[in-house]
């Protein structure tokens, strides 16, 4: 336990956990030759330890961007770097929690969460931690259940625990709390912030929920509809811990809604 901890830390000194995206674009080409421009060239820096929200309408390329950072998709143009090293393929240092939980149906919840450590050959040292994550996500009673026996929210919590237990340097969350009810969602937001505070993992969070973005993140990247581009980047100048009823919170929220033309039905002019 102690040894892995120090190893990760020294590595982090050599390789800061910051992301540098330069002129990254993605065009999908289907087998029949039809091309979809998912992302137009965009540049973005995420500092080490920062939590950035990515918001934008459906289909604007948010998942595509996360998949490229995770290394599951090659960009059509541009470069992505983690610290000083170009991102060339998937790796354990960039954890991705997918939009749908994608739990392994043949594994129990516990074994699902253990997948990362098992894949890295570090299962023995991580047993206690797996237990802790089971407890924190409230999945202890379901540790030996199979995914098809879980509710949607429980499955998403298990997927979150599976990503977190692997100690990635960069955590990519694709609508991690999307399937949860309002109450569980708010509770989980606090949990995620707590994990993030103790570890200061660089985090990119895709969400459809503007409140969630303001409540959790340091910056909010607003994207345009298809094809995706960065519309603007907004700082969230609120100190933590934040309050959902803070007047500044509500003002920021109103600003973003206004900008996205979502503040209410407008009069025909």
């Amino acid at each position, binding site marked *: 336990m102690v040894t892995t901890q120090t190893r990760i830390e020294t590595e982090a000194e050599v390789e800061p956990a910051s992301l540098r995206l330069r002129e990254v674009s993605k065009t999908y080409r289907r087998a029949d030759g039809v091309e979809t421009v998912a992302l137009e060239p965009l540049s973005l820096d995420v500092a080490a330890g920062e939590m950035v929200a990515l918001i934008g309408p459906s289909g604007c390329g948010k998942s595509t961007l996360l*998949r490229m950072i*995770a*290394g*599951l998709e090659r960009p059509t143009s541009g470069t992505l770097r983690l610290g000083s090293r170009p991102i060339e*393929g*998937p*790796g*354990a240092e*960039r*954890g*991705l929690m*997918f939009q*749908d939980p*994608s739990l*392994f*149906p*043949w*594994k129990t919840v516990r074994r699902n969460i253990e*997948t*990362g450590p*098992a*894949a*890295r050959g570090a299962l023995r040292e991580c047993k206690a931690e797996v237990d802790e994550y089971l407890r924190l996500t409230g999945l202890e009673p379901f540790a030996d259940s*199979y995914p*098809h026996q879980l509710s949607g929210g429980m499955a998403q919590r298990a997927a979150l625990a*599976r*990503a977190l237990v*692997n100690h990635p340097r960069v955590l990519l969350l694709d609508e991690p709390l999307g399937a949860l009810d309002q109450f569980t969602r708010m509770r989980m937001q606090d949990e995620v912030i707590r994990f993030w505070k103790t570890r200061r993992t660089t985090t990119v969070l895709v969400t459809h929920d503007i409140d969630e973005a303001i409540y959790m993140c340091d910056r909010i990247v607003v994207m345009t509809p298809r094809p995706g581009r960065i519309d603007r980047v907004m700082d969230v100048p609120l100190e933590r811990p934040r309050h959902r009823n803070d007047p500044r919170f509500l003002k920021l929220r109103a600003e973003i809604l206004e900008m996205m033309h979502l503040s209410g039905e407008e009069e025909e002019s």
Partner: protein
Amino acid sequence: MAIQVLETSAPSPARHDRGEAVERRRIPSSWPRALAPAVAAAVALVLHLALPDRQPPATSRPFAGLTAAMLAVALAAAAVQRTSGRLGAWARHRSPLATGVVLALAAWDLLTIKLAWMPLPYFPDPDRVLTAMWEDREALALSAFHSLRLLACGYALGAAAGLASGVLIGWSRSARYWGMPLLKVIGPIPATAYVPLAMVMFPNAFASGVALIAVAVWFPVAMLTCSGVADVPKAYLDVARTLGAGRSFLIFRVAVPSALPSVFLGLFMGLGAAFLTLIVAETLGVSSGLGWYLKWKQGYLEYAHVYAALVIMSLFFSGLMTLLFKVRDRLSGWRKGMIRW
């Protein structure tokens, strides 16, 4: 009648579940229902003893004793059925089936020795078959042992080869390029068609039998393993990759487990093909085993022995199938809605 009413008014939340579950919630059944197997056994026994034989009887007459034993068991089971525990529920569930089996045995006895509607020597009565089974028990046991040995060797070899080539062809693009055409061209030929080839290629009948069975098993196992591995949902592989999985983890800890249902389908089909090939191999060259025994006894028109061998074969094959189903349930119990055996 009163009990009938009770039964229908009893709450049964699991009416749409499988029979067993419904059965367990139901109150213990009535005496007439519980006694059905015993009544059937009594009828069988009375008919067997009362009606005169119309065919020469076998050298020993164990059927009467067997029926009496069934009667005793059925009476005990009737008492068990009135209890509300797991055993009682099981006995209730099996009771109609047991009645059917006993009636079928009684009908067999009637149609053969009692009414002589079925001609000898092709349709011996139960006494003859039981006698044959007992008298020839050593030869039958030895044959079963030889069959099992041949089957186990051939099946293990074929399944191992099928799994290995299936995973390889399913995972690797270049292996698929060369392997798939081979699988498509060679696979569909029934293994028994290779009998002439196997006879000249192998030093003895046992080795050629093993080879034939292995070929028969190899094709379905390889084909279904390959398609299972090739069809692994991409999301599982992506998840594993972002968790730091290397190639061997992706193959053996993600692709293969995900393909297990398909793999087991192949193993079941392979087992069926193995039984068929086993019997053919034994009748054609290998001079031992149940298939050979069957052929040998048929040659002497000893049909009682033929049926005896069929009964053993049924128990033998059914037992192996059950074993494979048990293994599957252990390894892929996570799936819902699987076929039960």
